[in-house]
C-alpha cells in the first residue's frame, strides 16, 4: 500500500490570493506555496497517497493533466526536504 503524505501539524497558515504562507514557530521557518503547491499542501491529510492526489488534481484540471504528476512529485519532494510533511 502506498504511503500517504501528512502535513506537519505545527505550521501556522495564511492564505493570500490562493497562495500560502506557512510559518513554523519552533523552527522560525517560513515557506511560500504557489497556487499549485497550496492545493497539494491542503490534500496532504494523511488519507491520500501521492497517486491519489495526482489523480484528484488531474480530474479537476484536465488541461494540465500532462504536468500534474511531475508537479505533485516535485512539490512533495520539496515539502519533505523542508520537513513540512511526513509519510504515514
Amino acid at each position: 500500500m502506498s504511503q500517504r503524505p501528512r502535513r506537519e501539524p505545527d505550521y501556522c497558515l495564511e492564505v493570500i490570493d490562493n497562495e500560502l504562507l506557512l510559518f513554523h514557530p519552533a523552527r522560525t521557518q517560513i515557506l511560500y506555496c504557489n497556487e499549485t503547491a497550496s492545493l497539494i499542501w491542503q490534500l496532504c491529510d494523511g488519507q491520500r497517497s501521492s497517486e491519489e492526489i495526482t489523480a484528484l488534481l488531474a480530474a479537476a484540471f484536465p488541461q494540465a493533466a500532462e504536468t500534474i504528476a511531475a508537479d505533485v512529485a516535485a512539490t512533495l519532494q520539496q515539502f519533505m526536504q523542508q520537513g513540512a510533511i511526513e509519510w504515514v
Partner: protein
Amino acid sequence: MSLFQRRVIAFAGSLVAIDYDGIPAAAIIDFLFEAAPPLEVQLDREPQVTLSLQASAETAELILYRDNLLLYRGNSPASCAELLLGETCHWLAFHSSGGLVFHAAALARQEHGVLLPGNSGSGKTTLAAWLTIHGFDYLTDELVWVPQDSSKLHSFTRPLNFKLAARSLWRSWQQASSPGVWSGPQGDLIAPTVFNSTNRVSTPQIDLIIFPSYAPNATFTLQQLPPAQAGLKLMQCLVNARNVPEYGLRTVAQLARQTPAYLLNYAGFEQLDTHLQALVDSIHEPK
C-alpha cells in the same frame, strides 16, 4: 568624582539605558541618538538592558560595557560608536513588542512612506541614501516598528551606517571630511542631514515596499511581487516574530495584501537614476 549621565532609548516597547561619562562619550551619544524617537512614556519600569560608556580623562580611551561584559576598549570614536549603535539596535529589537519590527530602511515624502526591508548587505542603506538625496526624508536604515492595528511606520532614526564596501559609493556624492561623517575601520556613520539638509522625521503610512538587492555586477531588474511572495520576504525580515501574536503572520499578510511591493536588483546609482524615479513618483498618484 565622576558624574554619570543617563540616556534612555525607547523604541517599539523596549527601553535601553546608556550610562555615560566624559565629553567624548557625550559626543558619541549626541551624534548617535540626536534623532532617536522621543521618550514619551513615563519611566515606571526599568530598562531591559543597560550599557555604560566611559571616556578616560587620562588616556582618552573609550570603554564600553554591557553589564560586566567588555564590548570595546580603544581610541576610535567611530569604532566605539558603531558598536554602541549595533548593541542598542539589537536589544531594542530583541525586547520589542506591541507590533511588528522589521529589519528595514524607511523614508517618507509628503506623508507617503516607503519601506525597504532587507538583511545586512542587501543595499538598504545605499538605496536609502539615494532616495534621501532625491528629496525623500530619511527615517531609518535599520529598524521599523509597525504597531498593532496600524499601518504607520515608526522608525528608529539613526545615522546612516555604511559598510566599508559601500564607501566608494557614498563618497561619489559627498566629501569624506564633511561634518556629520564619522569614519572607522568597519565603515562610516553619516548624519542624514549630510544628504538632505532639511531632513524631517515623521510616521507616515506605508505606501510602497521595495526589497533591495545590491550586487556589484547585477543586471537592473524591478519586478512587482504578488502579495504572497511579498509576505514571504517580509516575514524573512521580521525580527520579533516570537514577541507578537500568531508570530506576526496574519498582520504581515494583511500588509502584503494592501501595499504594492517590488523586488529591486541593482549594481549602481546610474541604474537607479534611470529606472527607479518613475516608481517612487507613483506613490503620489491617487489609488
